[in-house]
């Protein structure tokens, strides 16, 4: 499809601007002197509104979201995004609210509704995770991870500890080591044993240099680490903090709380567990919760309640790590998550985890005959298979399997992650896929397994039902074309 630049026609216009109606001499003041003015206007397209609406409508029809079909992308929790939350986010009382309003004198009174959303969401997240305090500032999961590591650093600095290392399991999501490194720590990888981080290896690697360990439980292969209590105890004895990557929280709600598992810092992915839309790659939100002894370091401002029940922005926390976001977080995302939690309630959230774990195990058992599961025991909310045998026997890789699934009408699972499984296929159905969809996915995977043996070339050619086939990614990286070239 042509780009909007290629579609441009001189003189076409969609912009609709009000008339100024002030004296002409003020218009003169908008003409800048040459040294402050750009020499030529930016070459933005000239199109009518209908051109743009058709263009992006057609582009949307070349895109696949949860609203289109089953999207078992492991680790991402692609569950249904409730529409009523979109209505709430667009209410003018929320959408039109300027973030500086509560920073005016008596300004908190102008935004009590918004402050209530943040405050009440914090209370709910405390209940869900067992943590003692939350910040909504982090703007994505990885941002929450970075914030969490910054909190770790502040804690150790305050105690006079000299710590330079962060431990992560070999199955960790890439954002874990990346976040720790960016925060200034050296990252050391702990091996897994039997699918979960090895507690013995962990204890051997613990030293007084370790600031903390980043884990998720269940982990990225969907397995719950039953040694978590002894891992936490060992960590705390070395004054290392336990960080919980909340990406997999969809598996344990109502059954376990990160605080009870021994974690000191938690980030949540509101766009995963709490049903806010993924947006094609954001916006997300990654609120961070902490146990009491880390509360003082949380970013400011915090939303607090006065004796009379009114809420205000509290900046008076001298040990705070400062600002990780310009204001209070991705409020529009937090609002959607708040709405989701209110709608589901305690029983509903527990049922979410039950159905998520049930669906993943159902897939494990149904796919088992034709696909090699990475760990042959019950999983939690996601299950990892390996296509290594198909790669070895038929030359069919995890990539080929993914592309073939596209032709079958499904979004593929996560591939080549976690790194600890060769030719990994990580499926996370979530709790919102109906049984007939799960069965259809199993049937499709079955056909692909059969084809792998009978006609592997067909799988190498996949996908064939999409607007484009496999793209030359090598060339894209070697000779990058990252914008529409300007006309000569």
């Amino acid at each position, binding site marked *: 499809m042509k780009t909007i630049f290629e579609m441009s026609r001189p003189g076409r216009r969609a912009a609709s601007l009000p008339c100024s109606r002030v004296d002409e001499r003020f218009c003169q003041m908008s003409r800048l002197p040459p040294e402050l003015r750009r020499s030529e206007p930016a070459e933005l397209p000239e199109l009518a509104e209908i051109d743009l609406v058709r263009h992006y409508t057609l582009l949307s029809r070349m895109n696949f979201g949860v609203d289109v079909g089953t999207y078992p992308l492991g680790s991402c929790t692609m569950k249904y995004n409730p529409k009523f939350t979109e209505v709430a986010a667009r209410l003018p009382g929320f959408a039109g609210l300027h973030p500086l309003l509560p920073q005016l004198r008596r300004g908190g009174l102008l935004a009590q509704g918004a402050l209530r959303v943040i405050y009440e969401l914090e209370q709910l997240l405390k209940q869900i995770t067992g943590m003692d305090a939350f910040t909504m500032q982090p703007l994505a999961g990885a941002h929450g991870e970075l914030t969490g590591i910054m909190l770790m650093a502040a804690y150790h600095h305050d105690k006079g500890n000299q710590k330079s290392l962060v431990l992560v399991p070999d199955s960790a999501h890439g954002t874990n080591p990346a976040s720790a490194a960016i925060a200034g720590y050296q990252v050391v990888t702990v091996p897994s044993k039997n699918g979960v981080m090895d507690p013995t290896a962990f204890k051997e690697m613990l030293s007084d240099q370790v600031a903390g360990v980043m884990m998720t439980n269940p982990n990225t292969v969907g397995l719950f680490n039953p040694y978590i209590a002894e891992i936490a105890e060992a960590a705390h004895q070395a004054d290392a903090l336990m960080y919980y990557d909340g990406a997999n929280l969809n598996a344990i709600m109502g059954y376990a709380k990160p605080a009870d598992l021994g974690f000191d810092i938690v980030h949540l992915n509101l766009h995963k567990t709490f049903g806010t839309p993924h947006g094609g790659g954001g916006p997300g939100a990654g609120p961070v919760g902490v146990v009491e002894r880390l509360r003082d370091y949380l970013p400011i401002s915090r939303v607090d309640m006065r004796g009379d029940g009114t809420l205000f922005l509290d900046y008076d926390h001298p040990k705070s790590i400062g600002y990780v976001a310009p204001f209070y977080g991705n409020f529009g995302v937090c609002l959607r998550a708040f709405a989701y939690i209110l709608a589901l309630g305690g029983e509903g959230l527990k049922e979410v985890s039950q159905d998520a774990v049930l669906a993943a195990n159902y897939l494990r058992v149904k796919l088992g005959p034709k696909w090699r599961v990475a760990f042959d025991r019950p999983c939690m909310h996601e299950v990892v298979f390996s296509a290594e045998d198909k790669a070895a026997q038929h030359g069919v890789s995890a990539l080929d399997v993914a592309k073939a699934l596209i032709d079958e009408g499904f979004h593929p699972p996560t591939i080549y992650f976690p790194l600890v499984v060769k030719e990994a296929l990580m499926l996370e159905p979530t709790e*919102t896929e109906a049984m007939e969809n799960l069965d259809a996915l199993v049937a499709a995977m079955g056909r692909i397994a059969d084809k792998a043996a009978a006609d592997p070339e067909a799988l190498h050619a996949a996908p064939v039902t999409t607007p484009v086939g496999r793209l030359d990614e090598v060339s*894209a990286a070697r000779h990058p074309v990252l914008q529409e070239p300007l006309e000569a």
Partner: protein
Amino acid sequence: MRFTPHTPEDRAAMLAALGLGSVDELFAVIPEPLRARSWDLPPGMSEPEVSQYLAKLAGLNAQNLVCFLGGGFYDHHIPAAVDALISRGEFYTAYTPYQAEMSQGILQSIFEYQSAICRLTGLDAANASLYDGGTALYEAAMMAVRKTKRKKLIVCTSVSPIYRIMLKSYTINLHLELVEADVSDPAALEGLLDQDTAGLILQNPDFFGVLHDYAPHFEAVHALKGLGILGCNPIALAVAKTPAEMDADIAVGEGQPLGLPLSFGGPYLGFMAVREALLRTMPGRIVGRTHDGQGRTGYCLTLQTREQHIRREKATSNICSNEALCALAAVIFLGLMGKQGLVELAELNMTQAAYARERLTAIDGVEPVDQGPWFNEFRVRLPIDARVAVSRMIDKGIAAGFPLGRYYPDQSNNLLVAVTEKRSKEEIGYLAEGLEAVL
């Protein structure tokens, strides 16, 4: 309210396939002593009940204040087509386009967005978005540190104080030297710029709305082999000298003015564009154009070896989810404004602001600050504490501006007033009359 489709029969069938009696058996792996002791959440609500509750909360926020607040975030008109298009489920319920063949919609849109940002800034390459203008500024600073292998960053005090606090917060453990100084006048760089300077960070228009030509500043930092970083307003870029024309290396900024609602602080949009030489150290997702086996043009994520899912602790950044839907809104907005429309929008903002400035400085006791020219924001000095004046103006239904004492302790009588295309001549009149009355 429930979103799972499973009936009790479905669950029974799935359990039967597993040979289990109850779903609780699936959680047996969690040791009993670690189980949640309590699960004290309120019961769920129906759609009408929760919607009503949220509407009530929305109603507790001031909705009808005439908005002259800015500070980097502006009350612009958002054309209806933006929301209509980003509400399409094919876009907003998708995730990162890892499987390019089935995600050409978002990929091409992001390519168009990158193109638009390059044309606005004049620079060579843009990424698919960062979280917001502040984290974008931090990422730019870190690029300068990594590229030059130096430790000193000079930030002008006319850069957003919010972003300066963020930069300090992020870099506190990194053994960097962060120097904040008023370097609006390039002569002030003497004695500050040296061989250890990784980057110089400036903002145009600055936090006080004043437009500058920073070419001399960037020339000075380049002479010492440091990098020039410019924070920008994307609508001002329609008319203002571009980062490229000033010879900046990295342009960053907040994209909220491009079709994103104020939404009490987010979600927003960090944009970044760089010179060619910095492309491979740029953080964030990047979309490239390529072709498939049949020669058809297509788009895919590219240069992924910079990213966390490949390089892990060696990545240029940890960013995973970014602000893709906001970038989509921005490119649609820019398409709707168009080449001519965006210029007119920028000029209209400046015109309304110029009128407001004259009306306000005509009030007895209200003094201009700065010489300008300005974009759509300016300072005035009041004869009383600006916080008091603003508080009184709220009672008149007007958010008159941002009292600068909040972030600049020596400016407690200064008020930062933003005027967009939405502020009519009448509304500006009410602002002036109201302010005169309360002083």
